[in-house]
């Protein structure tokens, strides 16, 4: 199982905050996970195409070629605006 999380405007666009799923066939890294999620439909395709999105695995920011493993928590979020 992997845990997926979406924050802020992205969460509202997708209508999902959290989900758990079995690591899909053929998904080995962030880039392939993104492609798999984008195949869900146009909303997902468009939202996850935004190049400003950040991805974190287990709460550390990572890059598209970072491996995704069973048990990981993978989160997507827009640029931060705290402070």
């Amino acid at each position, binding site marked *: 199982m992997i845990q997926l999380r979406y924050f802020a405007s992205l969460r509202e666009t997708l209508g999902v905050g959290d989900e758990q799923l079995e690591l899909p066939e053929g998904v080995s890294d962030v880039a392939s996970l993104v492609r798999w999620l984008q195949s869900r439909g146009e909303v997902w395709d468009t939202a996850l195409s935004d190049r400003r999105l950040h991805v974190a695995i287990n709460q550390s920011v990572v890059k598209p070629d970072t491996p995704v493993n069973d048990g990981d928590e993978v989160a997507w979020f827009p*640029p*931060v605006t*705290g402070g």
Partner: protein
Amino acid sequence: MIRVQTEDFDPGSELEQLRDRCAGRAGAVVSFVGLVRDLNAGEVIREMMLEHYPGMTEQALADIEQEARQRWELADAIIIHRVGPLTPNDRIVFVAAASPHREAAFRACEYLIDTLKTRAPFWKKETTPGGVRWVEGD
């Protein structure tokens, strides 16, 4: 010392506790308080909601504090950030750096807040007369 909380904080009390912890070792204490403005990008702000990524936030703030302590000679450092609903003039964030030296305290305090603003997973959503909008980050 880092904290993420919905309730307000008291800068005076935080500065007094910091002074007790430093006890003569710090000649310079620089602090930053961020407040909710009543205007942003030309629009009146009625209220604001601060969302964050629990767990990752605390880790990011602890890392930022640690980096500041490695780069400058600090007697103490504080980061406190609020989450949840806020209204204009409410306190959002407090950061402080105490050092034997003024220059180090200024540089470290500025580093803490600048880095928080680019790396800590907080997101602001504003309610204006025209509706609700997410503040756009860079």
